[in-house]
């Protein structure tokens, strides 16, 4: 009987080794975007896997291991690291609301196929990570979980502990912001014309922006 118990424990250890441990690099990739710091990211991954090991009996075999581990990692990050860390992002969600109307111009901007190659060459690459890192935490996380780790909306909702509807609207706004940032870089590099030169230039004028802000604060 005890022989059996002993070997069951070994099997559990073996399955942690073969199921959870191969996710270490993926967790690290996510931790880097969460903390934006190499040392902190390494510590976060270590803590995540140590906790996962202790609660391995709670993992439902056959469910998404990556989602389970990312949930642990996100909880540790929010409870421990985020408090210590000063957010580098300059936005809070209110500022995001203010900025979205301005970004709507870029979002609707059409990139002709010949510009797309230029855009790919000069904007997409490291700039994507830079743009992502500048997003507020909640927005960064939804993009990270959806586009880096291919989780479904339901899985993202479980990781971030909020309703699927919230995830949907957050992801919509997050992608809009990310794309707007990339368009901004493209304007800086002269690949596409700036908003003031575009046919919808007046939409992003400072007056419109201030007017929008007044309307928002009045409501």
């Amino acid at each position: 009987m005890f022989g059996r118990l002993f070997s069951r424990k070994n099997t559990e250890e073996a399955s942690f080794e073969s199921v959870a441990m191969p996710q270490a690099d993926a967790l690290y990739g996510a931790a880097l975007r969460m903390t934006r710091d190499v040392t902190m990211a390494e510590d976060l991954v270590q803590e995540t896997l140590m906790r996962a090991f202790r609660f391995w009996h709670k993992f439902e075999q056959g469910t998404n291991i990556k989602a389970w581990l990312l949930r642990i990692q996100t909880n540790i990050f929010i409870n421990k690291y985020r408090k210590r860390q000063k957010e580098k992002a300059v936005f809070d969600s209110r500022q995001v609301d203010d900025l979205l109307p301005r970004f709507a111009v870029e979002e609707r901007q059409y990139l002709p196929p010949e510009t797309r190659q230029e855009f790919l060459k000069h904007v997409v690459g490291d700039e994507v990570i830079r743009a992502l890192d500048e997003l507020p935490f909640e927005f960064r996380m939804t993009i990270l979980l959806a586009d880096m780790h291919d989780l479904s909306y339901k899985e993202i909702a479980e990781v971030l502990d909020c309703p699927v509807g919230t995830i949907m609207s957050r992801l919509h706004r997050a992608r809009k912001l990310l794309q707007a940032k990339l368009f901004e870089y493209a304007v800086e590099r002269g690949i596409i014309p700036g908003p003031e030169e575009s046919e919808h230039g007046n939409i992003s004028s400072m007056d419109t922006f201030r007017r929008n802000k007044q309307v928002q604060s009045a409501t």
Partner: protein
Amino acid sequence: MSVSQCDDFRVFIDPYLDGEFEERERAQFDAHLTNCEDCRAFFEQRKWLQSAVKPSLRQSCQLSTHARKRLEEKLRTAQRPVRVKAVASKVARPLSAIALAAAVFVFAVPLTGFKGSLTKELVALHCRDEPVEVPTPEVGEVDNWFKDKLPFRVATPQFKDQRVMLLGGRLSQVRSADQQVASPAAATTYRVSGHKMSVHVFEAKNPVGSHVPEQVIDGNRLRLIEEGGYRVALMRRGNLTYAVTSTLPKAEMLGLLGTSH
């Protein structure tokens, strides 16, 4: 949901792109796309941008060899006690009659008013290896859990030494030499380089372990008692006694307690 409006289509473009809709709902979007040139151009650009951005987001990151080794080492030490425990229970099984006799001794003797040694009891509690009731490495969570469950306020000890890992806490009972009945205690369990370490916090009117001289380690006053291969360190904070029990070597244990607060 109606997708006759372009705005509706654009609001739901993300779940549409991500394949979140059911087939029937998807068909409505497909139909709108076929009929609306503007939305088609909008969708096509979003799809292109999304596919252009994804590879950059998915750049593979590798945990450094150093970090990986550190992690594997930590996991190894976390695994070891499990194996030891399994072997121990294997050995202990045939001796269940003796264990039963020991249990009768532990539980029946206090009823007769026998004042056993406190350190022996602390070692027995340490060896009983009862599961933690609040499994968390967060000191704050353990403190909160103890709140309202004990007649005194517990500040779970923290150690600056990075090797000390809090496993969690549980309610326990300790009967100190000057008491006829057991008093409630907060028990917390830690893991230190493969050793288990228990801390029991309880109220005691008179200082316990006073037959052993007091030592001062980095400003912490404590009494260290050797008890059958175990070391029990007793510290006093006001009315509360903190008892740390472990098989850690003496020098290591003292070094560790020096970093506690």
